[in-house]
């Protein structure tokens, strides 16, 4: 996870835009950058918009507006890049809908450092979100990872500089790992193959020399480590290794990214090292355990010879809700009832209770004519656990129900803090 530093002016602009059309959704881009000395802090400096097509529950920025904004960025009329987008949910609360998730994924395929800012102008609430690209689950960015700066103030609080120094500030640069799915910086396709061929050549030569050196003198640190393959959401992860070297060890460093691969901007931690038994350990704080974590360990000896483990992936526990029938769009008539079964699908050792609550206050305002309840409790919320992983949701449509589309939202909240939102659309049509 990364930090977000947003200017007060951006929040004011977004609020003003949302409140100028309180009965419709509005949308725009967030403009910003990163600084070299703080490669884990996304700085949001401006909010821009243009012509959009706004409706009560939907807003679209058309290609014409996007093309103009793209031109303004390329020609330098707008300083900075698109680092996110904002839109309003008047009276709906803060979450990312399926549409919002699709949009965020469209932007986040270019860079992991893209945020979605959602504002509810009626409740005066805002929140930043990002996406787990594997599970497509939205992740709210916690308030203590967001800093608001005023004009003239340094956007990066000093404690953020020390909290997670970039790898280059420790012991030389991290090994270059071609990140999958990332924009190759300044790496054009036409020259891409040349770069790859030269990299392979360099790799072969390096490994030849490494091999030769290794035969002559076993001076490279030896790292013994049992890979961690899974962990629980929101729980700290302890990483241990045994590192030995005849010249003595200078430092052992853990590099990790909250992602399924090590990106060029990984976090690093110097591991505690015990000279007597070669035991090295450190902890990945629980704040970072919000998604899969890729990591490797590097050891450097007193002669500056270094060695790294391969990259490992820690699957962080998560869950899915499985709906039967699969569709979340239910067509029905007045004076009828339907039931859908909802099953908890634990992923990577997830073993926490999940409370599902239904929100049916959203749209349209006259919702009393549809009643959603869970079978066993009859209440609008239920608990799923590994003992009772399936629950039936009853939908009862009363005879005075108007034709129309009714949106409901189910909030699935696990006791470890992990949250997902699921939407239902119930279409009522008289025959």
């Amino acid at each position, binding site marked *: 996870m990364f930090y977000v530093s947003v200017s007060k002016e951006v929040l004011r602009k977004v609020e003003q835009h949302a409140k100028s059309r309180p009965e419709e959704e509005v949308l725009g881009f967030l403009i910003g950058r990163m600084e070299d000395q703080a490669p884990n802090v996304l700085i949001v400096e401006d909010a821009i918009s243009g012509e959009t097509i706004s409706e009560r529950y939907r807003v679209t920025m058309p290609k014409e507006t*996007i093309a103009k904004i793209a031109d303004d960025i390329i020609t330098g009329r707008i300083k900075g890049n*698109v680092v996110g987008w904002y839109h309003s949910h008047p009276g709906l609360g803060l979450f990312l809908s399926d549409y919002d998730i699709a949009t965020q994924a469209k932007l986040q395929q270019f860079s992991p450092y893209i945020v979605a800012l959602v504002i509810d102008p009626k409740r005066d609430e805002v929140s930043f979100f990002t996406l787990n690209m594997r599970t497509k689950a939205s992740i709210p960015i916690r308030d203590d990872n967001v800093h608001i700066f005023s004009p003239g103030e340094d956007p990066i609080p000093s404690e953020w500089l020390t909290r997670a120094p970039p790898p280059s500030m420790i012991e030389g640069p991290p090994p270059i790992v071609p990140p999958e799915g990332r924009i190759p910086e300044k790496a054009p396709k036409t*020259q891409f193959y040349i770069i790859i061929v030269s990299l392979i050549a360099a790799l072969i030569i390096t490994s030849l020399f490494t091999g030769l050196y290794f035969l002559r003198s076993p001076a490279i640190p030896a790292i013994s480590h049992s890979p961690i393959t899974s962990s629980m959401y929101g729980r700290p992860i302890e990483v241990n290794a045994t590192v030995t070297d005849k010249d003595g060890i200078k430092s052992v460093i853990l590099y990790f990214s909250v992602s399924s691969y090590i990106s060029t901007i990984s976090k690093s931690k110097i591991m505690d090292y015990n000279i007597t038994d070669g035991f090295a350990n450190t902890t990945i704080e629980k704040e970072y355990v919000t998604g899969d974590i890729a990591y490797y360990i590097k050891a450097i000896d007193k002669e500056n010879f270094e060695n790294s483990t391969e990259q490992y992936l820690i699957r962080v526990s998560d869950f899915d809700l499985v709906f039967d029938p699969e569709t979340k769009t239910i067509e029905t008539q007045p004076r009828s009832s339907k039931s859908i079964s909802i099953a908890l699908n634990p992923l990577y050792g997830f073993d926490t209770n999940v409370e599902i609550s239904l929100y049916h206050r959203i749209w349209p305002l006259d919702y009393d004519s549809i009643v959603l309840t869970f079978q066993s409790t009859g209440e609008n919320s239920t608990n799923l656990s590994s003992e009772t992983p399936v629950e039936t949701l009853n939908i009862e449509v009363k005879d005075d129900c108007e034709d129309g589309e009714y949106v409901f939202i189910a909030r699935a909240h696990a006791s470890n803090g992990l949250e997902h939102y699921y939407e239902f659309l119930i279409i009522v049509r008289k025959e």
Partner: protein
Amino acid sequence: MMVKEMRLYVEVPIGPTTGLAEIDVLPSHTFGEVKQQVCASFDVDLATVALMYGGMMLDDSMTVTQGGVSEGSRLALMPYNIIGGIY
């Protein structure tokens, strides 16, 4: 007769770092073909993005000549729409 290739630059101003691709094309290439090559090098989904130039979206079926794009032009690759909302 040899048709001269021309060099185009495609910027992706999304994320804190601008992605840049240099690409050599023939005037008869379509923007769909250009986009395909650029998307492959950036590893992004072809269906979600469009090439833009001079404040206009470039139609995939149009050729480089028809789009009025000349040697050394800087294009942008962006999502072609941005949608928020419940339904």
